[in-house]
């Protein structure tokens, strides 16, 4: 179907693809795995016509294939389903499907043949079992449904090869199942698929073949049956990670760091009460929309709190701005790194220093001591093990997801927080970086910081926490201590209305 031959690509003089070669047979589903920065996205962007390779070539059904634009890729019947979906929320499903080329009643008339696109859209939606009319606005659909619209778009151009780039990150468990069922159907129709994901279990389940990339080179290429999970991880990181969750030897202290009593906000949180001790890692489990992220925003002062009390080391936080809460020792790693965590265009050093900046300023006019802030940034870079190749002045957006997350951690750690709320700290980052994040959380706890850790990965919470709160519909449904950790019990509390005894 498609063959990559010695593809090379460099950015800023750094080689990100060092001669990648592999082939996809017609109708085959091939998984592509690798750490962030391994070159997966770059390779797919080349295939999709967004980037041009510096050397090497691609062959499509034996013919040379060198798309100069996404449109050219579309003409070659290759569809790209992006991580961040590329749909227009303000347009209807039908308009989204045909935005690349509206059919006309005749080649002479500059009008759109509405009836034709409606019919075709209805047909495609029926195929994918999406219960919407073609005129439904895309903004009314959930993330999972939008994903299906993207797939419909691929089918509308009669794609022979579909690229999925991290399709499940914003989907619920049920939507994910549905996506997989549809992928199975597509496979039966003989459509080849490239599947990129950090979720290695899904890759094993869906794919016929797996290609492992590391540092821009193919380090493994074998049928899925010959690549068990441990082997895949070992290939990806280039070393064996014996234990993903590092051991923490310290125990939580007696003192209470964060005291939350009866916090309520209509339709978001109901009577939330818990105590976070110094040196404790307290997990918050729950499905998307259970109120876990909303709770974090209320605690940090970004969203209003209608009732209840929040105290940090005994000091009442209610009514204070995020800024004032930060001054009292609160820190918050948001789930949305790009929109709220970082200034993507700004330099690494400026991002890392941002929170603690007032500490480096003196006098009436707030002169910032360059020496102090530089020194502090240098130390914190080392502490979070930011990749050594990154210069301080380099924009954050040039870093891989894992290194970006380390910059976010650095900027909060620099302010020496007493309570750190972390929301999805390992979302979209690779195994190596995950391990580093876990290590930093443990270090913080060992120094007496209270950590409130929100995550949708139950394994992660079980591996890291002293206790886990389970939320559902804005309420705490269950509290599980480490000795009783049980995946089933947590999932049950998160899923069902009935609270277990």
């Amino acid at each position, binding site marked *: 179907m498609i063959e990559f031959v010695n593809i090379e690509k460099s*950015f800023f003089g750094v080689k990100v693809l060092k001669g990648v070669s592999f082939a996809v047979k017609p109708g085959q589903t091939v998984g592509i795995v690798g750490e962030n920065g391994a070159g997966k996205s770059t390779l797919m962007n080349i295939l999709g016509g967004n*980037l041009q390779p510096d050397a090497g070539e691609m062959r499509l059904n034996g013919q040379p294939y060198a798309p100069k634009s996404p449109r050219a890729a579309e003409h070659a019947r290759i569809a790209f389903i992006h991580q961040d979906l590329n749909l227009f929320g303000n347009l209807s499903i039908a308009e989204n499907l045909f935005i690349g080329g509206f059919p006309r009643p005749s080649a002479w008339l500059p009008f759109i043949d509405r009836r034709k696109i409606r019919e075709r859209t209805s047909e495609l939606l029926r195929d994918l079992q999406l219960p919407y009319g073609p005129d439904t606005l895309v903004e009314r659909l959930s993330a999972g449904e939008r994903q299906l619209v993207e797939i419909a778009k691929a089918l509308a151009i009669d794609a022979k090869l579909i690229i999925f780039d991290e399709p499940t990150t914003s989907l619920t468990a049920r939507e994910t199942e549905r996506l997989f069922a549809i992928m199975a159907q597509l496979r039966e129709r003989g459509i080849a698929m490239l599947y990129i994901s950090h979720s290695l279990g899904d890759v094993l389940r869906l794919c016929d073949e797996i290609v492992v990339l590391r540092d821009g080179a193919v380090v493994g290429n074998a049928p899925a049956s010959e690549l068990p999970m441990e082997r895949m991880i070992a290939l990806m990181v280039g070393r064996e990670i014996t234990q993903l969750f590092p051991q923490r030897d310290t125990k939580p202290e007696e003192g209470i760091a964060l005291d939350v009593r009866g916090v309520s906000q209509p339709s978001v949180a109901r009577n939330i009460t818990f105590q976070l001790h110094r040196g404790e890692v307290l997990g918050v489990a729950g499905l998307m929309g259970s109120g876990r992220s909303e709770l974090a925003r209320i605690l940090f002062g970004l969203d209003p709190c209608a009732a209840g009390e929040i105290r940090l080391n005994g000091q009442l936080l209610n009514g204070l701005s*995020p800024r004032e809460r930060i001054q009292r020792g609160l820190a918050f790693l948001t789930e949305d790194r790009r*929109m709220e965590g970082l*200034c*993507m265009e700004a330099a690494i050093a400026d991002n890392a220093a*941002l929170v603690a900046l007032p500490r480096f300023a003196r006098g009436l006019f707030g002169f*910032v001591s360059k020496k102090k802030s530089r020194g502090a940034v240098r130390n914190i870079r080392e502490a979070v093990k930011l990749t050594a190749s990154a210069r301080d002045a380099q924009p954050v957006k040039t870093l891989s997801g894992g290194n970006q997350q380390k910059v976010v951690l650095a900027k909060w750690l620099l302010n020496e927080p007493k309570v750190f709320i972390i929301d999805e700290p390992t979302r979209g980052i690779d195994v190596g970086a995950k391990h580093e994040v876990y290590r930093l959380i443990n270090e913080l706890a060992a120094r007496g910081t209270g950590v409130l850790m929100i995550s949708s990965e139950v394994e992660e919470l079980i591996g890291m926490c002293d206790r886990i709160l389970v939320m559902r519909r804005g309420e705490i449904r269950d509290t599980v201590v480490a000795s009783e950790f049980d995946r089933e019990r947590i999932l049950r509390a998160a899923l069902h209305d009935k609270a277990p005894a």
Partner: protein
Amino acid sequence: MNFVKRLFLSEYLVLGLCVVYFAAFTPFTPGFASWSNLQTILAYCLPILVVSVGLTLVLIVGGIDLSVTSVIALASVVGGKIMSADEGWLAGSPWAIPVGLFAMLLVSAVVGAVNGVAITIGRIPAFIATLTTMMFVSGLAIWLTLSRKIGGLPSGFVMLGQNLWIVAAISGGAILLAHVALTKTLYGKWLYAIGHNPRAAIVSGVPVGRVTFFTYVFSGLFAGIAAILFTAGLETGNPEMARDNLLDVVGAVVIGGTSLYGGKGHVIGTVFGVLFLALVDNSLNLIGLNFYTIAMVKGGVILLAAFTDALRNRFMAGA
């Protein structure tokens, strides 16, 4: 290629362009390089530069201030109304000059504060907020004077705008102040962070509302300082003062490499941008082109600058 690329990305690109332009036009433009003409250019540049620097701050924070030139007109009128020997409220009083200067700055800061409140508390887009204050303020300036110019300004005041050394000292001081604030202080660092990503700035504990508000006040104040220089230089309180300069000011800032999308820019770039536009303006004047032709050329230059900025961004992205 590498050299071209480095030159292209350099902060001093515009200064280089100024030198090249000057060298290229001197042989064809009689009097371009004469001492008196250079003084003319400088005298024209400096007040414009002060406004442009204020606007640079606003653009870095991710906003826009269209009211700056109307603030100049209003402050000019207010100054005239107070100080004029013919019709001023304090005509002949020893307090006329200090009160006049204070009132000019105050009225400018107040307009800036109104912009700031509308944008930070009212959450009105900066474009609309400052467009409406521009309309209101320029209308007010004309209404106050019934569209007449005010003459008879005291000589102590006029000196502030006519002695080139004093003009240079005032504008140099203002520019230096903005440069230091931008590069050395907490305020400056916060300004860039907000311009890059206001939501991330809020989460990181940056007082986004306060910083944004004061940036518009500063923009007003810088326009007020420019109003003092203009009014004194032309010896009149004029309700239409600087009316045609708004796009020169915005254009100069953009030529200087400040991004309209916020988060990027510096005072030095703006200095070069103003200088470049002034050179173009002056040289075309000297070879006898009329106002409208010059406007067309300047429009083209600004478009080219915006295009260069877009190209730079693409280079930076590495594609």
